[in-house]
């Protein structure tokens, strides 16, 4: 079998994985590195459950080959908290009950962090549009929007 070695930084640690070149970034994250907070929710790159940060930009890890991430700095949901200290976005989702089953939540959180970078004081409309790439089957998005507003307000204080 054809394999290749990919070196990348994941949650601040230098990692090296030897994989079939066809391996997607999400597979490296979940199966080779054991970081299963990032989820696979669809076959069509629509659901956003697989969202991680690549060099500070939110990307769908199911839509890229791990090879495209070589030399890059990847942050997953596991990497945004520090010890027991939740990231403010996670805190907001907890406070505002922005989840039910939790399957879309890591992707929502990673995506929402990206959203606030460009729109630090978003309207509800901007939140709904900004999170277009993340699908939730449980909540109807109401508390997700509240969570992101809560995080935006906390950040501006």
């Amino acid at each position, binding site marked *: 079998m054809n394999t290749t070695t990919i070196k990348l930084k994941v949650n601040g640690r230098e990692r090296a994985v030897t994989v079939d070149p066809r391996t997607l970034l999400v597979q490296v994250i979940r199966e080779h590195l054991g970081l299963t907070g990032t989820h696979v929710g669809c076959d069509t790159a629509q659901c956003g459950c697989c969202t991680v940060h690549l060099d500070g*930009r939110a*990307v769908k890890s199911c839509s890229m080959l791990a090879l495209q991430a070589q030399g890059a700095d990847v942050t997953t949901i596991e990497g945004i908290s520090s010890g027991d200290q939740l990231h403010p976005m996670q805190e907001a989702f907890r406070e505002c009950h922005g989840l039910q089953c939790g399957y879309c939540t890591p992707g929502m959180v990673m995506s929402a962090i990206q959203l606030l970078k460009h729109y630090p004081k978003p309207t509800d409309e901007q939140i709904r549009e900004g999170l277009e790439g993340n699908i939730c089957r449980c909540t109807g998005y109401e508390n997700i929007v509240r969570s992101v507003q809560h995080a935006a307000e906390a950040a501006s204080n």
Partner: protein
Amino acid sequence: MYTFEYQRPQSISDAVAAFDGEAKFLAGGQSLVQAMRLRLANVPLLIDLGGIPQLRQISIKADKVVIGAMTRHAEVAHSVEVRNAIPALADLAEGIGDQMVRNMGTLGGSLANADPAACYPAAVLGLGASIQTDRRSIPADDFFLGLYETLLEPGELIVSVSFPRVERAGYVKFKHPASRFAVVGAFVSKTSGRVRVAITGAKACVFRATAIEQALEADFRPEAAAAVEIGLEDIVSDMNAGAEYRAALISVIASRAVAKALKQGRRA
């Protein structure tokens, strides 16, 4: 996914030299990687353009905006300079896909793929841009040939696109709510009395709605565009919309693009 050989050249000339007749260039991968996952594409050699810095640029000149082929949609959308020079182009980039797709997807990838419902082809045709490849400059009017078909030769690499600065332009897209592709998208531009109207999503590839262009050259108002009746010839009928509905949408969306163009200040 079918197996493939992989190369990641560091320069444009290395990328062109790596092409062997069967290869495909990998830009953002938002279309290609998905096609490969679903086994709709069988790519024996994948040439990753991600390591070539010369392909990423945004350059504002007095009469044009030059954007490198590997520039991500998000970079164009968030560029203050592009927004000042050609606001409709920044608007268009901001509306592509979702924010994750915009962080990876590229101008060159969008044009080379030439999806019939993609947004960038409408900007290229609607502004009369020129596509600079490794071997020639191709005017927009010659570039788009048919379904996923462009004038590019095998192995020809898009390096950058030069968008002329215009007096006014506007882009409106009637989005499919799930895929966010254009059921119909209209890019309208006006400069020196001449109007271009590029429509995406309605036929096998982007095209100019010349009847609407003529109406707008006589009278650049939304009502003039809305009044034009588009014929059904070659209009796509699919599960998203029948041909009659699409044809009707073309005039409506074009008129909204005119309204948007009028709302902006004159740019040139």
